[in-house]
């Protein structure tokens, strides 16, 4: 039973989380795009500006959540796509390990970047 609750397991939890993160991402991704392309234009971005935004705690937390949900959502999505293609056995194990590691790497690196930008 326990396995069901891991993010790589099949079953309702992963499915539900994929939807919940999607719902969350709709808002945040739209906000993110809007903020960094329309409010501030992408070509105007400078370290200082990023830092200023990151020092707002609300923004910082949102970005971390953004990172976590997007990572889960994206990696779980890719994993699902692979299972849908019928991978099995060793292949599946490899996919789990590789994707898991990639997700971990992404999250760790993302947090480090966020910390740097926020100046922690």
């Amino acid at each position, binding site marked *: 039973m326990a396995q069901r609750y891991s993010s790589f397991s099949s079953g309702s939890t992963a499915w539900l989380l994929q939807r919940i993160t999607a719902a969350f991402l709709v808002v945040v991704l739209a906000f993110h*795009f809007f903020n960094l392309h329309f409010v501030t234009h992408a070509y105007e971005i400078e370290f200082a500006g990023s830092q200023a935004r990151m020092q707002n705690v609300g923004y910082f937390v949102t970005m971390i959540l953004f990172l976590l949900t997007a990572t889960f959502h994206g990696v779980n999505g890719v994993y699902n796509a692979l299972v849908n293609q019928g991978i099995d056995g060793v292949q599946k194990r490899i996919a789990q390990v590789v994707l898991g590691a990639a997700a971990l790497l992404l999250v760790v690196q993302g947090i480090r970047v966020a910390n740097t930008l926020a100046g922690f």
Partner: protein
Amino acid sequence: MSQSYDRGLIEDFGRWREFTAGMWAWVFHKFTGWVLIGYLFTHIAVLSTSMQGAETYNQTLSGLEGLALVRLLEVGLLAVAVFHILNGIRLLFVDLGVGLESQDKSFYASLVLTGVIVVASVPTFVSGAF
């Protein structure tokens, strides 16, 4: 069991002509999803330059933003993200069991809306690059 002939890949390729709305939606969603996760990795990689100091960060960013190609790719990214969002919303409704009869219409709506938003955003995205 008798020996049997597997039509293999011939049958899968070329079938796209016969795809219906729901299939296309799935193909596009899959494609955009992969692009987005791919971008997420690159994005974090690019932002990592901030760890080498503000200078590097600014240089990398402005360097990239100075390239017309990057600007165009960003428009593509926008298209991809908008479609994924809109179709994602469509899928969420499908998951809730709402409006299944008009799933094809909502897919076309996502496509059209994506087109409109992207076209409308082009000026903002490319301003100053050319």
